[in-house]
Structure formats: C-alpha cells, structure tokens
C-alpha cells in the first residue's frame, strides 16, 4: 500500500494504517474542540499548550509514517507543520505559535550545540583538506553560478524595476552568498536520526557548520559592496565588515566559555544535565537577541551575537577540549527527539507557502540551478582532494538544505532595500522552502548510499 513494495511487510503496513488511524483521531479531536467548543480569546496560552501537544503527536506520527516511505523523519515533522500550519488547516496559526516561540529559540540553539558536539577533531584532522576544498569550491561556484544566473534573469524580474547594471551586480552578489548558505540543523537532525557515523557525515556536518561562519562574513562584505553600489556618496562601509568579524569572534569566544562551563558542570556530575542544557540553550538565544537589540538601540549597530555559532563552539569545545563529550551527547540524546520534533514542525508551519505559490516558477528554476552549482562545486572539491568515489558522487546531496540562516539573511535584505527587497525576498523564501523540503531527503539518501546510515535507523517492523 503506502510502503516501498520491495521492503514493506504486512506488519509494517498494519503499523502505518494504525498510525494513520491514530493521527486521524488526534486531528478529529482537535478539530472538534476548535470548531464545536468556543474557546475564549484569553485562552491563548492554554490553546498553545494543547496545540503543542497536538503538534508533537501528529508530527511524531507523520515522522514514523514517512520513515516507512524511506523518507527522513524530519520531512514528516515539516509535513505535519505544513499540513496543520497557517496555509492549510490553520490549526497551528501564528497566534498559537507565538507563545511557543521560546521553544523554537531553545531548539535552534540546542541543535547548534549538538552540531558542535558531533564535530570530532580526531576524525576531522584527516579530512581537513577535503573540508577546506568543499567550503572554498562550493561557496565560490555557487556564488558565481547563482549570482551569474541572477544577472541573466534580472531583466525578467518585474520587481527589480530596471535597476542599473552596477546595482544588479551588487544584488547578485548578495543572492549568491545566500545561495551558498546551508542548514547545519537539518544535517545534525538527519545524522541523529540515521545514527550515521563516519567520515562522510562528519565532513558534511563540518562543512555545513563552517559554511555558516563563512556565509555570515561574506554577506557582510556583500552588503557593504551593495551599500556602495546603491549609495556611492557614502563610500564603502568597511566598519560593518569589521563589526561582523567582531560578532563572529565574540560569538566563538563566548561559545568556548559556555563550553567550559557546561564541561565543568558535566565533570562535577551536576543534576538534571538534560534540563540544564535545554535551559542554557534558551538563555543563549535570548541573550544573543538582547545584545542585538541593545547594540541597535544604543549604538545603531546592525550586529549582535550568533546563537548557533555560540552553541556550536560550546559543543565543539566540550567534545574536543574536555573528556565530557560522551556525557554531553548522552544527555542531549535524552531530549533530542522532542526538540527536533518541535523545531521542524514549527519550521514546517512557518514555511511561506504563499511565497512559493506566487513565485514557484522562478523559485524552482533558481533552486534547480543552485543544486547544479552545488554538484559542480562538490565534484571539483572532491576531485582536487582525491576523495573516494562515493564521496565524489554523493557529497552534493548533503548540501541542498537551507534553513534559518538563509531566512535571517533574506529578512535583512528585505529591511535594507524596502523598494524591491520584498519581491526579492518572496522569491528567495520560496527557494529556501523548496530546498528545505528536498534537502533532508537528499542527505538521508546520501548517507544510505555511502553506507554510513546505521541499520537500526531503517524502518522497524510493526507488531501485529
């Protein structure tokens, strides 16, 4: 029925049917409650709580169901978010999601910590050449390729309203940088789900995390250059580039400090390690946000701290500079699944399907071209590094996904160029949405093909 005919057993089919039945029952219960019973407007926190429960259950169920279709669970979680989100069933509306934003912030930082903790120097040491080449080659090829494509396509994009060539070049530079961004959160979730362990997954994760840092820096340079193109009388704003460099350096330094603190807590065998980590992740996010607001209000600076970078640096410090890496991963594993379910369901619910609907043609073209450039970049890098054949063939599949950082950069884009930025953002958000949906599937396929996905991650047999 819904399973892969070559692999599916009757037990699995029964399990899928049972899961679909339970999912329907949960959906009907919530639908009835929302439609028949009048919930007062003041009940929003309560409504958010039961919607959180509903989201957890429905996403976990859909995750299990799609796993039987050989798809990654996070695709199921995102699908649940899309299905019950504002653009389809509207159960997880913006009003409901707002009180739960703290959970999403915590999850974002938590995933950063997990990504850092997965980076083991002992493994990366032998792969530094590959990692460096992958970063340089894919970033360069994707930026030049997608930027060039944008220059060619610009005359056909009405919202650009006939910008002069110099400004088109500047915008193309920013678009190219955004196209180079990856999603460490999706990568770590897929690695955790498939229990993948080995040089391929380590390389992909290492490149994804490092690429975030590179992209932040490059975006600062691209923004400064764009500023020169749009307002030449103000000159090149190199201060912004220095500020962003400072932001990255301070974030990494804070991450090392945080890593030392968590390492000490783990060493002293402090209580409730999982809860403490979750709490700290929330604090890191809120603190970063607060510093950003403070710098903007008092010094008119458009920089802040990068929570993902802080947490990734903290995880990396604990894993590689202390003996507590295993304990950290063990403690995080206890709460990781609920965190991933919440994060990716909310990501799905927040996917701008409206943007996708209005600009799917151009978005699909850009997404396709971006993937072609990634293939080219990874082929070049892996050939230069002399990587084994499976690496050369499948590395590109690990770099398709885009998520939080891309969206954050797009929003900056929008705020800096209000005249045409909204139209541009709509197209780019649609591109991110496409990449977010196909990326996890592609990465899981790659892990299976190179043989790093563990057997335990394959679909379980249902009990009859």
């Amino acid at each position, binding site marked *: 029925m819904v399973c892969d005919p070559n692999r599916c057993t009757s037990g699995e089919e029964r*399990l899928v049917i*049972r899961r679909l*039945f*339970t999912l329907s*029952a*949960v959906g009907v*219960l919530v639908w009835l*409650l929302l439609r028949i*019973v009048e*919930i007062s407007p*003041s*009940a929003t*926190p*309560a*409504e*958010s*709580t*039961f*919607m*959180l*429960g*509903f*989201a*957890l*259950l429905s996403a*976990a*169920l859909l995750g299990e169901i799609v796993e039987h279709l050989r798809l990654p669970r996070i695709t199921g979680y995102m699908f649940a978010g899309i299905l019950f989100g504002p653009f389809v069933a509207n159960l997880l509306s913006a009003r409901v999601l707002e*009180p*739960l934003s*703290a959970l999403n912030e915590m999850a974002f930082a938590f995933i950063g910590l997990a990504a850092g903790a997965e980076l083991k120097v002992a493994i990366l040491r032998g792969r530094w050449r590959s990692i460096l080449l992958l970063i340089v080659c894919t970033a360069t090829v994707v930026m030049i390729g997608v930027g060039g494509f944008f220059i060619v396509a610009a005359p056909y994009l009405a919202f650009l309203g006939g910008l002069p060539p110099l400004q088109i070049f500047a915008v193309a530079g920013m678009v190219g940088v955004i196209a180079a961004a990856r999603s460490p959160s999706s990568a770590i979730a897929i690695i955790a789900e498939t229990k993948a362990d080995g040089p391929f997954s380590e390389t992909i994760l290492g490149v994804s995390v490092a690429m975030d840092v590179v992209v932040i820096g490059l975006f600062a340079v691209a923004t400064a250059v764009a500023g020169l193109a749009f307002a030449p009388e103000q000159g090149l704003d190199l201060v912004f580039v220095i500020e962003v460099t400072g932001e990255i350096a301070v974030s990494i330094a804070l991450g090392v400090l945080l890593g030392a603190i968590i390492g000490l807590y783990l060493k002293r065998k*402090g*209580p*409730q390690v*999982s*809860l*403490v980590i979750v*709490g700290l992740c*929330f*604090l890191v996010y*809120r*603190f970063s946000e*607060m510093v950003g607001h403070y710098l903007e209000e008092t010094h008119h600076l458009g920089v802040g701290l990068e929570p993902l970078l802080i947490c990734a640096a903290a995880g990396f410090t604990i894993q590689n500079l202390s003996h507590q890496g295993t304990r950290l991963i063990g403690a995080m*594993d*206890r*709460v*990781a*699944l*609920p965190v991933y*379910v919440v994060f990716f369901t909310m990501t799905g619910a927040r996917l701008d399907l409206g943007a996708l609907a209005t600009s799917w043609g151009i978005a699909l073209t850009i997404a396709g071209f971006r993937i072609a450039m990634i293939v080219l970049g990874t082929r070049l890098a892996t050939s230069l590094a002399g990587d084994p054949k499976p690496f050369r063939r499948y590395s590109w599949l690990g770099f398709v996904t885009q998520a939080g950082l891309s969206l954050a950069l797009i929003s900056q884009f929008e705020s800096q160029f209000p005249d045409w930025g909204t139209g541009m953002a709509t197209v780019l958000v649609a591109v991110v949405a496409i990449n977010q949906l196909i990326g996890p599937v592609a990465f899981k396929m790659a892990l299976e093909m190179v043989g790093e996905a563990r057997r335990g991650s394959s679909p*379980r047999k*249902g*009990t009859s």
Partner: protein
Amino acid sequence: MKALVAVIVLTTLALVGSRRAFVQGRSPFAVQSFFTGTEFIIIGLLLGRDFLNVIDDSTLDLLRPFVCVILGWVGFLFGLQFDRRTVSKLPSGFFAASAVEGMITLATVLLAAWYLLIRNTNAAPDVMAIAAVTLAASATCTGLTALTFIENDRRTASLQVPSLLRFVSSLDPAVGVVAAGVGLSLFAVHPFDAVSFPMTLQWLVISMCLGLVTAWIFVSLTLTRTSQAELTVYLLGVIALAGGVAFALRLSALFVSFICGLVVANLTHVRSIQGRVMTIMAHGDRFLYYLLLVLAGAYWKLPDIPLLFAALVYVVVRLVGKVAGGYLSTRRLARHHAVPPLIGLGLVSQGGMGLAIIVELRFVSDQPLTEAVMSVAILAIIINEFLAPWFAIRTAARAGKSVS
C-alpha cells in the same frame, strides 16, 4: 531582560531544590520544620510582584503554557500510580480508611468554606462554589514531608503508624483531585442552576472523556515497539494535549491528566512500558516540583489582616476535618492495629498536590475572589507544613506508647 533573569533564577532555584535534602541533624526542630520546601514558596513570593518583581506578570504570562504542562505532568504521574495490580495488593482497610478520611475532610472544609464565603463575600454563587470546592479539594490532600521526620526519629521509626500515615498520605490526594475536577466541571464553565444542570453535567462527562481519549491515544501509540526517545515525545505530547485542552475549556488539567494516567496504568498491554514512563517522569519530577513551589510563591499575593485570619480559620477547620476523618475512618482498623484516635494529627502536611490544586485555580478563574483564595490557601499550606512534623512525631510517639 527581566524574563531572561527570571528564567535563570527559576532554573537555578529548581536545580538547587532538586538536589537538596531536608535539614536534619543539629538544626533546631523549628528550623527543620520550616525547611521542608516551603522556603521555596517564600523565595517565590520575594521574587514576585509584591517584592523584588523579578518574576513579574509578563514573565508569569510567558510561563503559562509551561505551568500548564507541569500541572498535566503532576496529574498524569499521580494517576499512573493507581495501577490496579499494585492497588489490589494493598490492605483494603487502609484503602477504605484513606478514602473515608479524604471525604470527611472534604465535606468539613467545603461546608465551612461555603458558609464563610456566603457570610463574608458578595461574589457570584458560581465563583464562590469554585472557591469553596478548590479550598476543600486542596485541604483533602496530605503531603509526605512530615513522614520523613517520623522515619528519622528513633522513637517512632519502627512503628506501624508511619506506614498507615504514608498510605493515607499517598492516596487521599485522589479525593482532592477528583473533587477539584468535578467542582470545576460543574461550576467553572457554565452557570450552575437547576435549569441548566444537565448542561453543566456534560462538562463533567467531557472532562472524563478527555482523560479517556488522551489515554487511548497514548496507549495506541505505544502498542508497537517504541524507543525511549519516542516514548518521551508521546508522553509530552499527551500531557500537553490533556492539560492544554482542559485549561482551554476551563476544566481541571490535574483531573483530566489524572484520568489519563489512571487509564494508561490499568491497560494490560501498556504495563510493560509503565516502568519506562516512570523513569522518564522521574528525571524531571523533583525539578518540576520545586519549580512549581517557586511559581506558586510568585503567584501569591501577601494576604491582608482579614485574609490572614481566614487562613488561620482554614488551618483549624482542615485540622478538625483531618482529625475527625482520621478518627472515623480508622475505627475498624483500630480493632487489629495500634491506631491512635488522633491519627488525623499526623496528616497535617498539605503537600505538593494541595498546592497544585490551588495554582490550577489561577488558570480557570480570574475573579478577585480567586486571588484572595490563593492567598489564604498558600499561607495555610505554609502554616500546615510548619506544624506538620511536630504533630506527626507526637502522633506516632503516642501510638508507640499505646503499643508498649
């Protein structure tokens, strides 16, 4: 900024609490009696709106979904303990004694609270009914903290009375949770009068059905082989769903999730995973308990003189209920066991469930009377916790003398 500081403070306090042990040894008895957890309520009060304002109204609003989950967690965990296989092994006399004692206390406090509210307030009957039921339901609950003192006392540790007290303290909160659930179902959602009685009764049925349906969802999810991580997701999902739906409908989250836990515990095929669920819940249990204590303190407004008096009256009426309930419920047991007539004095501690019922009131009713009731009840809980060890040790010691 304030929310950030509040979260740091709350997390730190809950962590400290989850690691602490009751003060024992050389400290004076009065000091030991105070440091039984009640100090965290006082700290919450100091951090709250009336004093330092670290945990202000906006922070409390931010934490509402989280408190909702904590109450659902408390109810589910409590219901999970009523596994029929375990319960059937317990002496039936003890079981009946717990239920009778709980109901007598409930009736005593309910009648007194209703009478005093009618005489002294002009609130709407529904609001008074909710207040009276909540006060009575909370009064029914007995905490276990005082028993620690008996078990640490050389004179009383080996006696049979502590086990009876432990038994009653573990079971009588069920009467309170059910009373709160029934009370909120009848009075909180729909105006309560003779004409609309069937309408109000439907909410009681809905409360129970919600518990059953969420339990069914959990059971159906765990029919297949489930990893510990998946079980955690299902558990959190079901608790958030049960607690959130209950509050959205202004029903008792404690009652709905209690029913859910009770049903889950008693479905045969789930028994194998019951231990795993308990393990997951045990990880966060103490942390959440201390968090609840601090939050209760932050919700608490210091009572003025009339309310202070009302709190004392509440303590006395509850004590009368406990003593009467303890006496009447143990008469049959007294034929075969050394049960002191004033065993009710050993049941003064009101405990976490009593507090949870009071905190829950804040979520279903936002009337001025609600705040007053919370003030009275939380102060009474502090007084009861302070007095409980002294009463408990004397009750157990008296039983010891009668044995010898």
